[in-house]
């Protein structure tokens, strides 16, 4: 049993059955031995019971029938051709990725497209290593730093 009196929150939660099993057991043990907490708990329980016997004041007429004719017409539920905003965002993302991919691809290929159309020169490869990486070089002179600094 706890020695100090229970706080309001604990008593209130006890009325609502909102304490954990352990907390509830401890609170009940304290209340059983503490007249002050017992009194406060009873007041809260009585309050709760008094609320439950309060009658519900009736509206007194059929509101549904009264407002039925006044309800504004509602447009049919919206149907999105591509499944709404999320699909549009995905579509835009895919398009952006495609454009970015193309641009990156183009940057790897020599800008002298007309002249090198049949054998594209990959300039970036020489950036990673000064030593030509063997058969990865599309052309021997493509893998030298001098070519990159052009």
């Amino acid at each position, binding site marked *: 049993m706890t020695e100090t009196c229970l*706080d*309001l*929150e604990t*008593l*209130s*939660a006890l*009325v*609502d059955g*909102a304490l954990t099993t352990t907390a509830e057991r401890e609170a009940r043990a304290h209340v059983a031995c503490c007249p002050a907490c017992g009194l406060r708990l009873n*007041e*809260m329980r*009585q*309050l*709760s019971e*008094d*609320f*439950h*016997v*309060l*009658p*519900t*004041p*009736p*509206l007194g007429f*059929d*509101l*549904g*029938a*009264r*407002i*039925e*004719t*006044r*309800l*504004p*017409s*509602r447009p*049919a*539920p919206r149907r999105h051709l591509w499944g709404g905003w999320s699909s549009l965002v995905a579509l835009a993302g895919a398009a952006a990725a495609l454009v970015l991919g193309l641009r990156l691809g183009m940057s790897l290929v020599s800008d002298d497209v007309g002249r090198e159309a049949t054998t594209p020169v990959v300039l970036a490869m020489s950036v990673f290593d000064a030593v030509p990486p063997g058969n990865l070089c599309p052309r021997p002179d493509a893998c030298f730093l001098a070519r990159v600094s052009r």
Partner: protein
Amino acid sequence: MRDEDALREAAEIARARAGDTGAFAALVCRYQDRVFGFVLRMIGVREEAMELTQDVFLKAWTALPDWRPEARLSTWLLQIARNAALDVLRRRERVGFTALEALAEVADTAPGPDENYAGRQRQGRLIDALAQIAPEHREILLLREIEDLSYAELGATLGLSEGTVKSRLARARAALLARYRPFAGDADD
């Protein structure tokens, strides 16, 4: 709610969302007293509460396509009603007028055929005391004690964490008990 009722309500909601005014009227009929009772106890004036109840359902009709089945319809309606009632109370505050005069009227709606005089007096005192506490305390007590909302539902309806729900509920009970002692006044009645 029984399964059968729940199924009927789900069908009515689906039809109402599709634009069936008759189905919506059936839903209004089912919930009008609960919404009205809550609004009346929040704002205190019967005529104003009747108008506000009507507004709540008109708003609900407009917003129904956005309703999600994760929330109970009753809880959703009470959330709309709560916001509407708070708007009224804020407007009153701005013009410096409190409508506590109507409390006796709320209490007058209470008596049933087999209630005794002391019981009616007690209910009247409870309603009086309820009107004297802060709206934030009043709403949480009404939603918990009368509408039986869980802590999670209270949090969702009032936009609070469950921890805040717990502490606010405790403070609301203390505030109400400070003004309402059910047995204290019986000897004087």
